[in-house]
């Protein structure tokens, strides 16, 4: 009996020691990040952690809607998050963000001037840019070598691509692409247009393989899909793994987006969160993030640190004849309800 007790005590002591040695308990401060999957390199976490003596933990989500629903469901304890442009506006109106005046931060001077007065946070009272880019799709050119710069690839695909199309699990990206293909305005509440959109999507779904966001790159690289909706930087990462993938600039138009670093309302570690914002505004760190995520940074002076793939990548440098990418602000509640119904109807 005593022998057994000793073993237990020894095991407990080892466990306790391990817990104490594991870092988090030793650092002076804490920072909890809620971020998109696969969107922040470990080296930056370590660098920040070391510099400010802060233990960093991170959880991930796969869409702006998931972020919003988790916060609305009362999930607490996160300090910073990375919502997209329209979601920043929604989160401000829903009082989910802390007004931390990032424009007062030391490194705010590095911001690209044209990104300060944005529609969702003019003057930058709540947010700083994290990365920005476009949403389109990629095609495996070994499977299909025709013209890919049209949304017909998604909605009326050539025979070779039928059944090999992955779609992002994102209501806005999918419905906006559909509206562009039909030539109808975004944030649309015209019932005739919506009916047309609904029919288009339901018919197109017969040719689609899957709805997947966090596997959007993997499904293309593995060859399960020959076409996949994707964000440009994620697509570039895919192309570096599989050279035959090509990013499309559909003539009907494509979405521009900007992800932003924000501090959440009632964040437990507001000061560390502000330090993190300031840290991420520094060109060297913004460049490290850009080299990892492969979108575009919102600060100037990153060029000397960027890898050479980024400078010439088609994904980041649209050809001259490509349409201007379009930001889509949040639609009004009536339209949101319509969109939700069409989306549910599509996924059933």
């Amino acid at each position, binding site marked *: 009996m005593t022998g057994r007790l000793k073993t237990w005590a020894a095991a407990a002591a080892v466990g306790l020691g391990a817990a104490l040695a594991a870092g988090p308990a030793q650092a002076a401060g804490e920072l909890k990040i809620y971020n998109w999957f696969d969107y922040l390199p470990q080296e930056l976490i370590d660098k920040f952690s070391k510099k400010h003596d802060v233990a960093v933990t991170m959880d991930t989500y796969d*869409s702006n*809607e*998931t972020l*919003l*629903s988790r916060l*609305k*469901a009362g999930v607490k304890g996160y300090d910073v998050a990375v919502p997209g442009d329209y979601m920043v506006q*929604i989160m401000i109106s*829903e009082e989910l963000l802390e007004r931390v005046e990032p424009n007062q931060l030391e490194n705010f001077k590095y911001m690209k001037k044209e990104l300060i007065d944005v529609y969702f946070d003019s003057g930058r009272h709540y947010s700083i840019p994290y990365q920005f880019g476009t949403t389109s799709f990629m095609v495996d050119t070994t499977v299909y070598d025709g013209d890919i710069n049209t949304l017909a690839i998604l909605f009326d695909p050539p025979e070779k691509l039928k*059944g090999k199309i992955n779609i992002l*699990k*994102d*209501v806005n990206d999918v419905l906006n692409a559909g509206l562009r293909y039909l030539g109808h305005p975004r944030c649309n509440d015209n*019932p*005739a247009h*919506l*009916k047309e959109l*609904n029919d288009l999507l339901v018919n197109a*779904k017969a040719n*689609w*393989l*899957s*709805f*997947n966001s966090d596997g959007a790159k993997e499904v293309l690289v*593995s*060859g*399960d899909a020959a076409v996949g909706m994707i964000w440009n930087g994620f697509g570039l990462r895919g192309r570096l793994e599989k050279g035959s993938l090509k990013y499309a600039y559909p003539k009907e138009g494509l979405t521009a987006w900007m992800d932003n670093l924000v501090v959440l309302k009632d964040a437990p570690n507001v000061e560390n969160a502000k330090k993190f914002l300031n840290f991420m505004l520094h060109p060297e760190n913004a460049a490290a993030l850009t080299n990892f995520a492969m979108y575009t940074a919102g600060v100037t002076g990153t060029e000397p640190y960027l890898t050479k793939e980024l400078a010439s990548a088609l994904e980041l440098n649209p050809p001259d004849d490509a349409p201007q990418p379009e930001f889509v602000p949040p639609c009004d*509640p009536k339209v*949101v*309800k*319509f969109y*939700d*119904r069409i*989306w*549910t*109807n599509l*996924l*059933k």
Partner: protein
Amino acid sequence: MAGSLGLTTNGAVQPKAAAPISRDRLLLLSPALIAILVFLVTPLIFIITYSFLTPGTYGGVEWVFSTDAYVQFLFERDLFTEDLVFSNAYLSIYSRSALQAIVATVICLIIGFPTAYFIATRPVSQRTAWVFLITVPYWINLLIRTVSMLFIIRDEGPINHALIALGVTSEPIRMAYTDFGIALGLVYSYLPFMVLPIYASIERFDFRLMEAAYDLYSDRWTILRKIVLPITKPGIIAGSLLVFIPSLGSFIAPDLLGGGKNLMIGNLIALQFQGSRNWPFGSASAVILMTIVLIVLIIFARRRAQAAGH
């Protein structure tokens, strides 16, 4: 911890005649009762309440009473006229889920029964090892097992590579992102839940009954039908319920192996809380699912009671 401490002080210090038994029993039950009350009944009250409220635009609820969530289950408002028209959209999700769950249950039964029979007829000393082997997959997280499954059955996966190499097929056979993929995932996930209860009932089976039947010139089929199946029926029913119920509400298999293309009930409910931001409808869907499961359970319980009464 607190429960067991209370038990020793109360139970030992006040030794009364008849009372301690029921009190001990209550104290022993209390951790389970408290857990059920806190983690089952409370969320249930929330879900039922929310299902009768109005959805907020960006998620959450507005505290305005409404039965819209239940109306929406069977009817939808026309995009043009706002008239209510009957819609089988959600019914079809429920019936497809039920069908997938039934298929998974039947396949589990077909594979599980012989497996359980095999294990139960090994020498006693070997049985533990066999049961132990059944549990091995459970050492790995369900999500990881499901993702691995996807890697195996995908177009570029080992199964299709082997089939093409052997000349069985020239084009890869599509298994991932189909209903077949979902069924495979469900069977793989829940098979042990079928094997273990059946094993338990066969293990208790008195094999002398079988010998007696042989002596009376019964054939194997009749023995299975008239003796083995009736006696092991409780195990079969328990196993079937344990496979059917989680399959009906499963979330990971349809999302990953089915490609998120054809919703099952679990995905429909998740969607209402995320993309569609309609919490009352998500809650109502969950309430309807629970009601269906409850009805199935009551039917089985009644049948069992009737069978016991005869």
